[in-house]
């Protein structure tokens, strides 16, 4: 009688052991972290500026631009250190859906992260209208933001936060071989036990060019770089 249960435990443990391996996306290693550093220097005032952008992401970016049509994003995941290329697969109003070659997805609305898919413990949805208005108009102020996740039981749970948006410095720099120039905008959010610092580089037209945004407790921060808008 006890054996089926123990088998279940063993199976669960074994399955989990192999499942955790599959979570990994293309590993970027050290160069990814320096891209991150360079990117953060772009969007975060006071961060240490990297001297030159690393070679690898540049090659990745160029390869992506030549092989993928339409808008392309480069995303670097702080938690895993992986860098992935995403091509746009859908556009619905201000919302753009991008997929990676291995069919994981990110969704951005006015450049603000609206959802992730296929990574596990994904950001299900985000209400970012208020902060998006401030960020894209490059103006300071406060606004609400709500991010939603499925809990372990499978029920959608909201994480409401209150965010203060402030303006940093104008910056012009090359990242992964692409020249960016715009204004630093930072967003500090607190609420539901979370403290989040997002940063954006916003063009004069109000486009988010490069950003570091918090995707959730398991994905952590993601650095987005628009390779082609």
């Amino acid at each position: 009688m006890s054996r089926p249960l123990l088998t279940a435990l063993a199976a669960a443990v074994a399955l989990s052991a192999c499942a955790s391996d599959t979570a990994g996306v293309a590993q970027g290693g050290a160069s990814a972290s320096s891209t991150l550093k360079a990117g953060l220097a772009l969007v975060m005032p006071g961060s240490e500026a990297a001297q030159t952008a690393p070679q690898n992401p540049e090659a990745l970016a160029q390869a992506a631009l030549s092989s993928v049509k339409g808008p392309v994003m480069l995303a670097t995941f702080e938690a895993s250190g992986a860098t992935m290329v995403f091509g746009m697969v859908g556009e619905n109003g201000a919302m753009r859906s991008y997929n990676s070659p291995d069919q994981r997805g990110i969704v951005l609305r006015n450049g603000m992260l609206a959802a992730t898919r296929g990574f596990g413990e994904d950001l299900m949805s985000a209400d970012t209208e208020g902060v998006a208005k401030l960020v894209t108009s490059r103006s300071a102020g406060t606004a609400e933001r709500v991010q939603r996740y499925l809990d372990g039981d499978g029920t959608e749970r909201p994480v409401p936060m209150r965010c203060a948006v402030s303006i940093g410095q104008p910056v012009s720099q090359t990242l992964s071989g692409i020249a960016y120039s715009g204004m630093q905008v930072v967003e500090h959010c607190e609420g539901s036990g979370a403290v989040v610092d997002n940063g954006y580089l916003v063009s004069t037209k109000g486009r988010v060019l490069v950003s570091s945004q918090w995707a959730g407790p398991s994905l952590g921060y993601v650095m987005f770089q628009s390779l082609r808008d």
Partner: protein
Amino acid sequence: MARKVSKIAQISTLALIAGSLPMAFETPAHAETTIGWSLGTYGAPGLIDMPTAEVIKDGELVTSVYGYGKTARGNFSFQIAPQLTAVLRVSTEDGMADDGTALRDRGFDLHWQVLNENGMRPALAIGLRDLMGGGIHGSEYIVATKTLNPSLRGTVGLGWGRLGSEGSFGGGTRPVSDPTGGLNSEAWFRGPAAVFAGLAWQANDKLTLKAEYSSDAYEAETAAVGFDRKSSLNFGADYKINSMVKLSGYYLAGSEVGLQLTVALDPRHPPAPSGLEKAPLPVRPRPAPAADPDGWSGAWTADPTAQPAIQTAVADALRKDGQILDSMRLSADSVNVRVRNQIYAAPPQAIGHTARVLTRALPPSVETITVTQVSNGMPTSSVTFRRSDLERLENTQAGEILAATQIGEAETAGAYVPTEGLYPRLQFGLRPYAEFSTYEKDADLYADMGVELSARYEITPGLILSGAINQKIFGNLDEQTKVSTSTAPHVRSDIAEYQKHGDLALQRLTLAWYSRPAENLYSRVTVGYLEQMYGGVSGEILWKPVDSRLAFGGELNWVKQRAYDQRFEFLDYDTVSGHLSAYYDFGAGVTGSVDVGRYLAEDWGATFSVDRELANGWSVSAFATITDMSSDEFGPGAFDKGVKLRIPLSWATGKPSLATFTPTIRPYVGDGGARVEVDGRLYQSVRNTHMGALYEDWGRFWR
């Protein structure tokens, strides 16, 4: 950089979830306070031998193995409701059998936290140990536990039976409990009582130290094997190895050392992150009317090639997603697709994918999108959207699209165009299996491992020929020595005879026909070798409106007992069995059912079941069957009861799959209250696409 990382590290999922709870969900904040720090040696929240008034985390399933000297216990504990813990226990008690050998015993306990800890008020619980065994553990208690400071809890209680055997007062003589295994309620809270007490101290995240003043005299053990009870004080330490596993050591009665290993499975904390899957296709918004005037006007319907092209495109996209488009009914302004979800444990996720695929394939004039789920060929429910809502609400809070959605009865007629080339459909499967002997008093455990080859041939939708055959690779089930001495017809108790045959044992070979005879009605007829022990005919009908909490069903079977070798022969025994059933969905994933009727041994009675399911697909259900078969005739335990688990593979791997692991744990397999096992019973096939279950799982719609 480092500063940022540490900030992220602080944000655990738990903090997030707890922080967001007051928004909409039921668990009150103070409910956390009496979650048990440790399990006792009997598997319920406790110190060592003494219970506490704590609870286990809701829904948690804990296995613990405890031993001292030559005595060992295995406890399976389920938190079946936030306040109610049930424990099934098997044990080997050194020297306690009548002939002085080890007693192999089993027991069932209930622990109910009547009051939660609140302010100055301690938590209060009552419990029944071994409430139907009449065994040596039989005892009852009332206990209070108070959190004295964040790392110290004190417990005081009053015990009867075994827990009232040391330092007892009053009560006269405790009535002798029924040794045949019925409810021994005549003895509950009777006889001498005694006070017990204890403390638990969480020294740090990993270590909890425990001390208790025990009211258990260990009388029987002292008499049988010379247990040396030098002291009423027991001491213990729990060491948490990780979030699932704990190791405990005890110093008992000043003379014995005990060890306990505890493994906890929390359905709410999957071992892998949920959602390792392909991203869904996004909604494709329609072009402006000026850009596609023919598409918007509906003029496209005049083109005879339009519908086939659309259907092929939708079928291909769904196939890549893991779903099958059975058929489609398309008009200028609406579409209804019948879809078989072959992949997502949560139907709303499958429906969400289908709806998005449709926005990409349909001409702009189609505004109403209906997705009908199909189970075993039966359309079971329809979910209808306005296309403009899908466009407007994509990737927003799941509740918003739900509010704009209609869920209702599936059309059973209509001009549906079947997708070409789907039927007949043949599927094969090969998988490993493990089979175990039943737990018997004074018997060893036997097991086989092997492979199961299965096939399913769906001739037309709903008419299905299927079978499975087992081939043992290794094991010792054939060495079982158990011989059933049941005085009732051996409808189940000869299970060992069947288990001895593992070579090409035909598990089932059936022709089943599922259909929708009328609105809200579902039917099934199954003919053939239904299960390991029975073949025959089984017919079932179910009434279940999509939005109804209540459902009724009826089942009638004529079955004949199969030969032990599980080939094509039969034994002499045949019978007619059948049930009338009522099912009720209480909400929040809890369903109850009552089945009244005649069982395999021609005994009459009723089965009561309660099932608790989480949105991630985990479920735990408990059942008990009371029939007119006497408890003597049934054997140990007096009546049939047990626990069924369903653990979804997707929970363990994070990847989408319909596969589940469904063990049934029965303390004793007797001949009373036995039902024939048939695949595809209707309520289970239908329920998860009906309103209650769709609402529960709806958070996955945009995933």
